[in-house]
């Protein structure tokens, strides 16, 4: 099967058609955990420098889809993928693809903050060091820059050598975002990044996502529909491993095309 990828795509934004560069394109994507199929023929184009939210009930495949974009599913035994995913027109599942380079381009923030039990500095410097940066001054600069971008610098600048696990939950999650930014990714995947945080910490993360949009393409999985509405420009609704609807966030929440979407966003089920 020859799968063609769009060079540009147009989608409505607040009722007007806007042309975007497609950053991530998935075509006829199916995914299997052993014999269990988790994703069915997903076709989704994610626009550059926008926040795209993936919503849907538990087990609908949104996290699985997210993890196919940086090939984190590769770490699980017995998984299999069909179809094609490109980032900037490069097939990321082609034989010989360097997963290390891919993951450097596609950063990830996890549901539960997972700082290394090392100092704040060492957490941020971990990625850059792995990618070969040894110069102390460069590392210090990178650490400061990343923490500033993640809005954490002012809170921790005097205690960079404190163990990261001594930070609060919200600070730990922003640290994880800073850590992902330190390797200079183009895409940021976020798997329910605020689900374990209190409302104030959540608000900070959401503000941060909005600030980061101009520099990064962000894909965020969330259970919280208000959150999707607040932070994203585009939303994809998944159900039972299928992509039901993808649209401008406002439109998807107010005038969904599909009955299933409407039932879900109005809270009739899920």
């Amino acid at each position, binding site marked *: 099967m020859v799968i063609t990828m769009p060079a540009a795509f147009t989608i409505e934004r607040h009722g007007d058609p806007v042309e975007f560069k497609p950053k991530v394109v998935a075509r006829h994507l199916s995914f299997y955990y052993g014999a269990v199929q988790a994703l069915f023929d997903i076709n989704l184009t994610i626009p550059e420098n926008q926040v795209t939210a993936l919503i849907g009930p538990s087990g609908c495949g949104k996290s699985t889809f997210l993890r196919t974009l940086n090939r984190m599913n590769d770490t699980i035994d017995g998984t299999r993928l069909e179809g094609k995913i490109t980032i900037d027109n490069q097939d990321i599942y082609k034989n010989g693809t360097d997963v290390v380079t891919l993951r450097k381009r596609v950063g990830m923030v996890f549901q539960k903050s997972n700082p290394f*039990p090392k100092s704040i500095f060492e957490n941020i410097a971990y990625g850059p060091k792995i990618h070969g940066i040894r110069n102390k001054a460069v590392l210090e600069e990178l650490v400061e820059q990343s923490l500033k971008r993640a809005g954490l610098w002012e809170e921790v600048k005097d205690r960079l050598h404190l163990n990261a696990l001594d930070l609060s939950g919200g600070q730990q999650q922003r640290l994880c975002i800073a850590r992902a930014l330190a390797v200079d990714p183009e895409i940021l995947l976020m798997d329910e990044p605020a689900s374990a945080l209190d409302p104030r910490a959540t608000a900070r993360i959401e503000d941060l996502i909005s600030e980061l949009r101009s520099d990064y393409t962000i894909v965020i999985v969330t259970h919280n529909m208000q959150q999707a509405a607040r932070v994203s420009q585009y939303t994809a609704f998944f159900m039972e491993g299928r992509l039901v609807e993808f649209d401008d966030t406002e439109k998807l929440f107010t005038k969904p095309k599909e009955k299933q979407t409407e039932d879900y966003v109005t809270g009739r089920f899920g």
Partner: protein
Amino acid sequence: MSSLSERSALLALRLITYLVVCTVGFIVFDIVIKGIGVVNWSFLTTNPQGAAGGIFPAIVGTLYLVFGAIVVALPLGMASAIYLTEYAKQGRLTNTIRLAIVTLAGVPSIVFGLFGLGLFVLFFGFGTSILSGSLTLACMVLPTIIVSSEEALRAVPLALRDASLALGATKWETIRKSVLPYAIPGMMTGSILGIGRAAGETAPILLTVAAFSLPQLPRSVYDQVMALPYHLYVLATQFPNQDEARPTAYGTALVLLLLVLGLNTGAIVLRSHFRRRNKW
């Protein structure tokens, strides 16, 4: 009725526990009481004279053997554990390997002794030597080291591996920087506990290294040495004049006990130290 059976069950369990503790306590007490009079500086630092005299060569020999076993078994065991937990595809083959390792842990020590005699002493031609003895002990503790190392590796949260991989680290970089630093204390603890047991074993060294009496210290790994457990066996069984040999035997037993106890205490202190440090 139920409260009566409840109370009697509690009583029975408590008594059994006390019995176990008392048995251990009695053995230790007996050895300490009968051995303490013999153990002094010259006992620890001089050569044996027949059934009397010191046990210096046996202490040195045991330390050499334990050290040798650690040097050989620790890297091998840790490497196997890393392969099994981090790399090997979990399936029937890996489970068979695990079963084999657990079975190996249950093999009687005299069998390890015979194996060492056949392989290291005769086939490889190392002779009865420190080398053969250490390698035999290493084989014996290998299963313990692998099993406890696997446990230590699995105790490191998956989230840390994910965090590292997602930053573009390779699998080996992830293991080296984000798994091993937190697993090594646990690996060491389990391994030392295993080696502590091996330090007291007689059968494996009986056939591969231990000397009946050897007043001088070894000059190379191809030399024989005396060892505490075997020396104890010799003192207890090979001297007709037990009035003379018995106190030396108790002294030797006390030193061996303290050595193993020291190793275990060290391992436990190490573990609690690192447990406090690594909280997640």
